[in-house]
């Protein structure tokens, strides 16, 4: 394992990316906490929205990419796709948990409750539960190929709930407010400064997600290599040790 530290070395471009995140995050926080105007109804509480909505969107993206790379693994069976899928799944769990925590923080002073079982919140809770299930399933299976396949299927099921979750407030009666930005072009019901602040913070959240995705996938790749090498070593030593050879 002399090259272990070499394998684990973070490439220069990734370090630059990581350092660049600090001022970007600071700018996003400044836009949200200082530069953005107050809301006519919510006052300063609107500032929580920039963190809550941007994190929620990136959580959706993370779930989507988990399923996308899971599907790629099912399609062509490259270990690398499974590694990226897991990396994204961990971040999907982190971001969707943060969505719930941020949502509760935002909801208590505005909607007057931490939690209610409306369609949007129920679907989000379900998403977190299914992501936890994803990791339980992974922990139960030793064979990397089977593990990758089964967890890819779980990821696809989780991703299938995304459109329902995204459009929940439009399709069902919810306490959660509807979207202020309609992707079908019917308009944005948000002041331009607020929209800019939200989009900037979403880009920053996306870059944070991307950085951790790349870094975690890098580690996952080394992990997969080590797992492979260990399996080969065991296969070599098993017959000479006089043990039972399993094929």
């Amino acid at each position, binding site marked *: 394992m002399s090259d272990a530290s070499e394998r684990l070395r973070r490439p220069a471009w990734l370090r630059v990316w990581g350092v660049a995140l600090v001022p970007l995050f600071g700018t996003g926080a400044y836009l949200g906490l200082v530069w953005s105007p*107050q809301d006519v109804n919510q006052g300063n509480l609107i500032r929580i929205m920039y963190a809550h909505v941007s994190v929620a969107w990136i959580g959706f993206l993370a779930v989507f990419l988990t399923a996308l790379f899971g599907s790629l693994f099912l399609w062509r069976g490259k270990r690398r796709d499974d590694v990226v899928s897991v990396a994204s799944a961990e971040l999907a769990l982190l971001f969707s948990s943060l969505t719930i925590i941020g949502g509760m923080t935002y909801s208590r002073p505005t909607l*007057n409750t931490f939690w209610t*079982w409306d*369609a949007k919140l129920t679907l989000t809770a379900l998403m977190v539960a299914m992501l936890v299930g994803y990791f339980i399933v992974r922990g139960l299976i030793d064979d990397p190929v089977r593990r990758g396949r089964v967890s890819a299927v779980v990821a696809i099921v989780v991703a299938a709930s995304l459109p329902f979750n995204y459009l929940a407030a439009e399709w069902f009666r919810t306490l959660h*407010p509807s979207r202020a930005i309609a992707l079908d072009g019917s308009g944005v019901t948000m002041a331009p400064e*607020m929209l800019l602040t939200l989009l900037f913070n979403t880009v920053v959240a996306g870059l944070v997600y991307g950085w951790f995705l790349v870094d975690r996938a890098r580690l996952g790749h080394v992990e997969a290599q080590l797992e492979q090498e260990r399996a080969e070593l065991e296969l070599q030593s098993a017959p000479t040790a006089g043990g039972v050879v399993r094929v």
Partner: protein
Amino acid sequence: MRARRGFARRRVVYALLGVGVLAFAGFMISQALNTSLVYFILPSEYAQQPSQYQDRRVRLGGLVAPESVRFDDLDLQLTFDVTDGLATYPVRHVGSPPELFRENAGVVIEGRFSENEFVSDNLLIKHSEVYEAPKDGHIDIEALRESLQ
């Protein structure tokens, strides 16, 4: 050859099992969502079938009717009318009004109808998806307070 056929058959069994499990999960989700889907009823929906909702715990959603809000801050009695434009009902709620509670604000109240008055024990705000800065750059707290008198 036999192994391959076995594999093919097993795959069919797995696919059928998978579809079965997904269908079951979908059924469970739709059942669970069913109560969430009709998260609240509207005053006009109550007006159509009052007997169905009488003495049952329901969520009622609507707007706070203008000039109907009374708040007694000594014994925390809040009364207002909730309306959806078609039907209007008086609401009695024990507790102080939430921060975003005001005339024409969207509310979801939990409780039950007793006769034609709604007795609420949980007052939630349903605000719109419109976010904008106040015209003169700051919020008129006094006007807000006045609307709650």
